[in-house]
């Protein structure tokens, strides 16, 4: 009897546990409190969308989650294990599992698309070059850029660069992806191709936290919308709740403005 009950309980325990848990993250620059104790639980397969005015701390929160910015306070757990970011080895191992997509792409300028995707696998994971190369081609194919893999960042369009950067993150087999306004530096015409890739990721069950102003796209895909202002998470809920029935007056105000700006949802 006991021998089947234990695994079942274990299984339930894993199901209930958030894949990423952020507790009480605070960050101040000089006198300015950029983050004032933000907490977030992210379950496997979730897509959390961070919205809020600029300066709300969305970007800082995302950068604190993988410690590109060191938080002054707060703790982070990935798959139930706390991240001890002061230990370099722990930090580097953790960052491999958390993919990051930047607003301005940040492709390595001296490497072509293929090398951009391959370098992390070779240098960080220690994979043989040939094997990493095959995987890189696969990832580039997935984002529709197999024909452009010999091109350098300077030869790619913004949308293509962002797709390469998504392929680069995916090649590391991340458990969670953080996307910091992935389309806000793009021409309107190029946003669609990046959205399609992100949508595809979501449909395949990737856990993501994304800061964006594209609320039409966000609400069609998000499992939860998180409204931030002034370093705090003010309100959170399903897209329907946040956009149609927000409790907080600031949330309502922001949502109505942004809906006007970024069009029909």
């Amino acid at each position: 009897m006991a021998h089947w009950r234990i695994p079942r309980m274990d299984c339930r325990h894993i199901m209930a546990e958030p894949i990423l848990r952020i507790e009480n993250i605070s960050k101040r620059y000089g006198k300015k409190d950029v983050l004032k104790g933000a907490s977030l639980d992210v379950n496997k397969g979730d897509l959390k969308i961070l919205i809020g005015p600029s300066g709300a701390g969305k970007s800082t929160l995302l950068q604190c989650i993988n410690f590109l910015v060191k938080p002054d306070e707060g703790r982070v757990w990935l798959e139930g294990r706390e991240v001890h970011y002061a230990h370099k080895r722990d930090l580097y191992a953790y960052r491999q599992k958390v993919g990051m997509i930047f607003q301005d792409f940040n492709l390595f300028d001296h490497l072509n698309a293929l090398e951009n995707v391959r370098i992390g696998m070779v240098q960080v994971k220690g994979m043989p070059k040939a094997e990493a190369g095959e995987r890189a081609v696969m990832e580039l194919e997935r984002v529709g850029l197999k024909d452009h893999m010999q091109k350098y960042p300077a030869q790619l369009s913004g949308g293509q660069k962002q797709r390469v950067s998504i392929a680069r993150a995916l090649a590391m087999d991340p458990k969670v992806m953080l996307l910091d306004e992935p389309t806000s530096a793009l021409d309107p015409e190029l946003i669609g191709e990046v959205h399609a890739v992100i949508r595809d990721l979501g449909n395949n069950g990737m856990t993501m936290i994304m800061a964006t102003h594209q609320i039409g796209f966000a609400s069609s895909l998000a499992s939860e919308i998180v409204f931030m202002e002034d370093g705090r998470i003010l309100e959170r809920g399903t897209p329907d709740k946040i956009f149609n029935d927000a409790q907080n007056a600031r949330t309502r105000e922001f949502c109505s403005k942004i809906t006007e700006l970024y069009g029909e949802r």
Partner: protein
Amino acid sequence: MEEWLYIQNEVYPALLKGFWVSLQLIIPSALCGLAIGIMIGVLRIYGNRPVMAAANGFVVVFRGIPLVVQLFIWYFGLPYIGIYLNPFVAAVLGFSLCSGAYHSEYIRGALLSIKRGQMLAAQSLGFSKVRMIFSIILPQALRRALPGCGNEIIYLIKYSSLAYMITCIELTGQGKILASNSFKYTEVFLMIGACYLVMTSVASIILNRVEDRLRLPGFEHHRI
């Protein structure tokens, strides 16, 4: 006719010998200098506080003291503490350290020009600092530093002529001996000047080739 014989029998063999010594001084000094420059440049930017201070101190000393004085210290000064360097080694050492101090300045500038996003991206993939520097930052920074470093190498070719001051008889040293024997200062030193001009021209052709070979889309020089 007499002139021609003098050139053929005395000037030519002496200058050839000196030319050869000069090359033997310049090539290792250029390579060591560049290596030292890269190392010091990286430490000046990415080292921790004491390391950074030490690297900055290195540059202050080796860029700030006249090269001849440095050479005299290596060759005539070190024996006082029991270290005897032969003239050739003392010259290569002096040139490398001085050249390295200058290179480090070009490399430091190039390192500072690399956008922070490149580092954030590398860190977000799990790169350690050392790996990030060697596989992401330096390959980009060196491309940007190349014109400046090339300039320093050209300069090194010329200041290699100081080696004769510590009895390492290279091209200029041979010329000095020839000229003081024959009093044909003008002829001899015109020839020597031409030799240096050939060396620096060849070096700049090679450096341009290297720049071309390393050029990547996004790293080209824009000519207006």
